[in-house]
């Protein structure tokens, strides 16, 4: 039973970080209809940038982390301006393929600058363990979960009350109408990419400070796809709820099924979940079911 509680707590907390990254995906999908398949690479590259700033340049975290987030904003702006803007109104296939090309490019860029491919970030959070019932949990996970939750709240408030947030929601609802109202749609696209990159960066920092930097972070990004599929592509709430579910299933499955099947089942459970969700409820828990007309 001690194991069970342990798996549940680790799963839910890690899942919160998945949620955070997944929300970046949902943001872009909602506002511009682009599926960002380079999510994993964005997570990885931003944790390497964190490494460059905190370790290679030696800045303290209170200064370094905000700089990373600013760089992530810049990266998002660049991607939107030079890759996505020329492709507005292209078929979905091109939009998916361009982010795949981007992911390939970023993969190369990461090898180009940091060829050694594995390293560790300085620990940002206290590592003392906390005893919850019979489970022993590292404090880091709780910090990560707390930060994700905080950001989720902040984003919700942003969308609810700020001018830009309301404009973004309006764009998601009806692009044409928004344009007719005089809201600059391209600015909204670029804002959503910037925010999404920042979320991927924060997710990357949280994951990397716990588990180190490595190609596993790309898989973290990939797992976020299962979060958005389960939660529904166009629902923030869905992403927030589905993240812990995926984390939970992944950790429980990893804990109990490894003995029955093969090692590494933890890594494929999110993908198996994708297939199951596709078969049963293709638009996810909270996704909008689109009615098609000819």
């Amino acid at each position, binding site marked *: 039973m001690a194991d069970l509680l342990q798996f549940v707590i680790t799963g839910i907390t890690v899942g919160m970080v998945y949620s955070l990254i997944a929300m970046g995906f949902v943001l872009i999908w909602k506002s511009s209809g682009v599926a960002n398949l380079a999510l994993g690479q964005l997570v990885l590259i931003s944790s390497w940038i964190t490494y460059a700033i905190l370790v290679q340049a030696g800045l303290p975290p209170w200064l370094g982390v905000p700089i990373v987030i600013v760089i992530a904003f810049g990266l998002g702006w660049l991607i939107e301006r030079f890759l996505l803007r020329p*492709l507005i109104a292209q078929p979905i*296939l091109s939009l998916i393929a361009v982010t795949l*090309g981007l*992911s390939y490019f*970023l993969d190369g860029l990461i090898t180009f600058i940091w060829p050694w491919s594995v390293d560790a970030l300085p620990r940002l959070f206290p590592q003392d363990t906390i005893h919850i019932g019979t489970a022993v949990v590292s404090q880091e996970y709780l910090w990560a979960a707390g930060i994700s939750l905080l950001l989720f709240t902040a984003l919700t408030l942003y969308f609810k009350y700020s001018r830009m947030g309301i404009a973004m929601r309006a764009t998601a609802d009806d692009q044409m109408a928004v344009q007719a109202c005089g809201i600059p749609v391209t600015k909204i696209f670029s804002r959503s990419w910037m925010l999404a990159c920042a979320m991927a960066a924060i997710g990357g920092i949280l994951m990397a400070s716990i588990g180190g930097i490595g190609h596993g972070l790309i898989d973290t990004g990939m797992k976020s*796809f299962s979060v958005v599929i389960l939660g529904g592509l166009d629902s923030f709430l869905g992403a927030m709820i589905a993240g812990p579910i995926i984390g939970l299933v992944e950790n429980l499955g990893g804990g109990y099924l490894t003995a029955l099947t093969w090692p590494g089942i933890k890594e494929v459970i999110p993908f198996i979940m994708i*297939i199951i969700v596709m078969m049963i409820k293709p638009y996810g828990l909270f996704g909008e079911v689109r009615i098609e007309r000819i």
Partner: protein
Amino acid sequence: MFLPAGVRNYSYAQDMAIFRTKTQWVLLGVLLLLLMVMPSFLSNYWLSVCNIIAITIIAATGLNILTGYCGQLSIGHAGFIAVGAYTSAILSGQLGMPFLLSMLCGGLMAGFIGMLFGLPSLRVKGFYLAISTIAAQFIIMWVIRNWSEVTGGNIGLSVPTAEIFGYSFTSQASKYYLILAITVLVIFFAKNLARTRPGRAFVAIRDNDLAAQVMGINLFRYKLLAFFIGCFFAGIAGSLLAHCYYGFLNPEFFDFKESILYAGMIIIGGLGTSVGPIFGVILIRLLDSILSLEVVPFLETHVTLFTSGWASGLKPMIFGAVIVLFLILEPRGLAHRWQLFKTSYRIWPFSY
């Protein structure tokens, strides 16, 4: 159908022909002759580059049927290629099945697995389907990595050389002829498929699947058929890759990045055209071999400005940039450029 001025058809057979004019027949003859004599001037390295190009053309043609004609985006093609490669290698290596039969079984197995993962295509499309094929890739590779009693796991699996009726394909040139023959057959099949009933159904589904259904096209049948054919070719390519190119198998050959590259190749070539995959594959594979043979080792030794090992990042960067630039600058791919070239050649010296 697009015809040069002055070409007339006098019978239906003439109208249906793929090669219509004498010039086209002559050019085809010259091309085939050139391909036949190629082994006599190329070194073994470049011959093996030709082999990988031809094998990749088979797989990309399959993907083009699935994605280009039928519009079902698949980003898990390397996974299906792996299924074919491993099935064929295990059947011929451990059970002693003859090569041709095991290749066919590899293709069929990949086709069925493809159909299985194509099932969600009946309910979802676009991005959702892309994700489910990514999931397919990861699940397939996980099984291959871990089912080590059969697949050799991460250590890999040695594969017997191809052998047909006692003749064993050991030299690079003999492999080249074998692969060339299969590639020509596959291209011919794909070219003709586009003009048959299923081919037209695929195009209708791509353009609007709901409208296609209303017009009486059985979506269930044709979408799964597209998955089957696309993955069948992937399996055949995988089998050739195992028996005639690598000689052993390792899960790393069928990485997710390889899948992205396949999707990139058909986009660069031009989706939904029969020459597109050929151009795209040749461009990417040639770029690949030139970079890894000449450019990367040269830069690695001569430029010491960056951390050692940096040059291995160049290849993915260039591939990614090529895919992105093609999408932005020429979304219709090289096939469209080829069409423009042909047209301007025909009407030269006039501009239109």
